[in-house]
């Protein structure tokens, strides 16, 4: 019972399929529209929002600049307080650490509180391969897991599903995973939540081991912080005997007063709430519980080495950029082929995995119109458009030894545009074409210009859906020469 992003097609193809899914389009437009409005309203209430954003960015930048020192400090505070710290270079190492802890305690099932890091490393699949079942306890994660589906949003992984679909998933799949859904389950949110609560309660009470992520890790006190809105996190964190937290190494904030800034930025940016319902903090191990912390790299030091791209590691996974992104709104999260979709996914995935490695990853920096809405929304001021363009350059550079048609086109455009005389010659050619086309072009566009018909490839990429005006018979340049400088 688990799907995987491995082998997803490149963005344009995946997007094409999503675009024709009318239910998905409706679910997404509705959900992102609602949360967008909510976020705008609560952000508008804060007078010093811009200062908060700047503070958040500065704290994270400082952490990233001295990441080694902060990590050692975190490790020490955690160890002092009785937690066992593990370091994982990549996904395989991290999964093996968690699995071996499970084996030591002879558990064959674990409960999980939503954690992007464990999804990033494919923990559930790795555990399943060793006969250990991982149960998601976040409502949306549960929906995704039961539906043998993939998450499509950072915060609301089942955003692409509506109530009717959720009811269907619960009715047909819950029984196989534990307590079945009631026979008369309707699609009322309260009933759906009630069914999930009963289903999950059984698992919370039974589980001896839990796996969590962390939104923040406070270095000075060795405190991990989980911010959530359902209370399932608190159940996972407190009930089991063994708690393993998988934490990306960029999650550090140095002190509690730094944490304060993010606890203001995060809820407003993510769920559009002034404050989130549950904030759990724990420092090391508590009585009767064994605590492990896996500090995960998995590409983060690669991203850190990228001067322009490293700002992506400031990300606090609030999902504000997804909710305002016009591309995400239409294609949904699956098209990005990763647990990190939307604008942040379009930069984070290539930064973590590297450019020039596979076609799917290389397609992501181009999955944006560069409209800039993500930058405006980002609570830690990640200049996503800037990083996108930077990564596009890296993708192009990675393929310079085997130039595509596009590279040839760009080279010739560059040659023409580097010198006005060359451009002038090119325009004469267009003017000639314009004279012919203006005579033979049959369609007249509103305003009176003739339109070109459907063009052969690659022009068809444009003209399949959009008319193109015929070129003018005279360029501006040649008009200016003739009579402009009166």
């Amino acid at each position, binding site marked *: 019972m688990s799907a995987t992003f491995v082998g997803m097609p490149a963005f344009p193809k995946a997007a094409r399929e999503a*675009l024709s899914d009318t239910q998905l389009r409706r679910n997404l437009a509705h959900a992102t529209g609602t949360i967008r409005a909510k976020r705008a309203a609560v952000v508008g209430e804060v007078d010093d929002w811009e200062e908060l954003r700047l503070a958040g960015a500065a704290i994270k930048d400082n952490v990233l600049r001295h990441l080694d020192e902060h990590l050692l400090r975190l490790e020490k505070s955690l160890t002092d307080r009785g937690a066992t710290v593990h370091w994982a270079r990549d996904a395989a190492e991290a999964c093996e650490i968690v699995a071996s802890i499970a084996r030591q305690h002879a558990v064959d099932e674990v409960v999980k509180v939503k954690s992007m890091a464990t999804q990033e490393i494919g923990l559930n699949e790795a555990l399943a391969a060793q006969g250990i079942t991982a149960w998601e306890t976040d409502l949306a994660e549960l929906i995704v897991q039961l539906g043998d589906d993939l998450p499509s949003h950072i915060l609301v992984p089942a955003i692409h599903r509506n109530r009717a679909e959720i009811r269907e998933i619960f009715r047909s799949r819950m029984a196989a995973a534990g307590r079945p859904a009631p026979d008369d389950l309707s699609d009322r949110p309260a009933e759906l939540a009630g069914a999930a609560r009963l289903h999950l309660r059984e698992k919370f009470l039974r589980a001896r081991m839990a796996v969590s992520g962390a939104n923040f890790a406070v270095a000075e006190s060795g405190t991990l912080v989980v911010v959530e809105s359902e209370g399932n996190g608190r159940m996972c964190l407190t009930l089991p005997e063994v708690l393993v937290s998988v934490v990306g190494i960029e999650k550090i904030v140095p002190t509690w007063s730094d944490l304060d800034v993010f606890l203001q930025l995060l809820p407003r940016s993510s769920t559009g709430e002034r404050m989130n319902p549950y904030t759990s903090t724990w420092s090391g191990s508590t009585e009767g519980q064994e605590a492990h912390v896996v500090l995960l790299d998995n590409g983060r030091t690669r991203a850190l080495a990228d001067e322009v791209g490293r700002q992506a590691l400031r990300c606090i996974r609030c999902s504000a950029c997804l909710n305002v992104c016009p591309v995400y709104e239409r294609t949904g999260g699956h098209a990005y082929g990763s647990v990190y979709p939307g604008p942040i996914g379009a930069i984070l995935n290539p930064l973590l995995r590297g450019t020039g490695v596979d076609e799917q990853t290389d397609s992501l920096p181009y999955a944006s119109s560069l409209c800039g809405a993500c930058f405006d929304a980002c609570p830690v001021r990640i200049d996503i458009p800037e990083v996108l363009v930077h990564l*596009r350059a890296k993708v192009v550079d990675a393929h310079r030894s085997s130039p595509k048609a596009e590279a040839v086109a760009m080279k010739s455009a560059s040659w023409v545009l580097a010198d006005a005389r060359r451009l002038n010659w090119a325009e004469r050619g267009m003017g000639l074409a314009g004279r012919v086309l203006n005579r033979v072009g049959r369609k007249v566009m509103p305003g009176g210009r003739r339109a070109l018909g459907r063009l052969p490839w690659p022009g068809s990429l444009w003209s399949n859906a959009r008319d193109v005006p015929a070129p003018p018979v005279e360029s501006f340049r040649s008009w200016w020469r003739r009579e402009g400088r009166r």
Partner: protein
Amino acid sequence: MKVAVQVTCINDTMFPDTGKAVFTLLRRLGVEADFPAAQTCCAQPMVNTGYLDEAVPVVRNFVDAFAGYDAIVTPSGSCAGSARHQHSIVARRSGDARLREAVARTSPKVYELTEFLVDVLGVTDVGAYFPHRVTYHPTCHSLRMLGVGDRPLRLLREVRGLDLVELPAATECCGFGGTFAVKNAETSTAMGADKARHVLEAGAEVLVAGDNSCLLHIGGLLSRQRTGVRVMHLAEVLAGTEDAA
């Protein structure tokens, strides 16, 4: 003040009327602007597609063509944004110190048309006449990269005869995005189709914006769907007068 107009490559080759309108308008306001004939393009098509090496000679041509002017006015939020925010990246990559200096000198002098009219010339009533029902689309780069704010609307509100109607979801991207329009053609079209629908909802005869590239995209959709709605560059609206009409 020595003023140059950067007509932009798209306007030069596809929309010469926009360039003409800018000159008509500036002359009417008493500004004798030049068209430095050595100009070509701001290099944005290369930069935004990731071809930074290919952008270098184009940026070099840009700074050479506009050297010696106090203000460079362009009827494109996108090209102004490119000059102000991307040329330095290209120059840094080139490793050419002379180019870096030239860019540092030139970039801050680039103004998007409405910035120049409102901030430098200090006018909002440019004496224009345009008796049509118009809606205005703030293009992403003028809105977010440059932050031109309500300057275009202030100019439009002073136009005689013009009936300005609000565009629903105005600040949403139209989906053009340069090479995005062909690399992700379906997604681009889906975004543009929503924009076109909003234009129809607004009940406008004419959609006005400050970037012909976005208008090429939205206008292409409006025309394909035979909506009868025309697109027009803001400069052309502002250049119109009662005498000319």
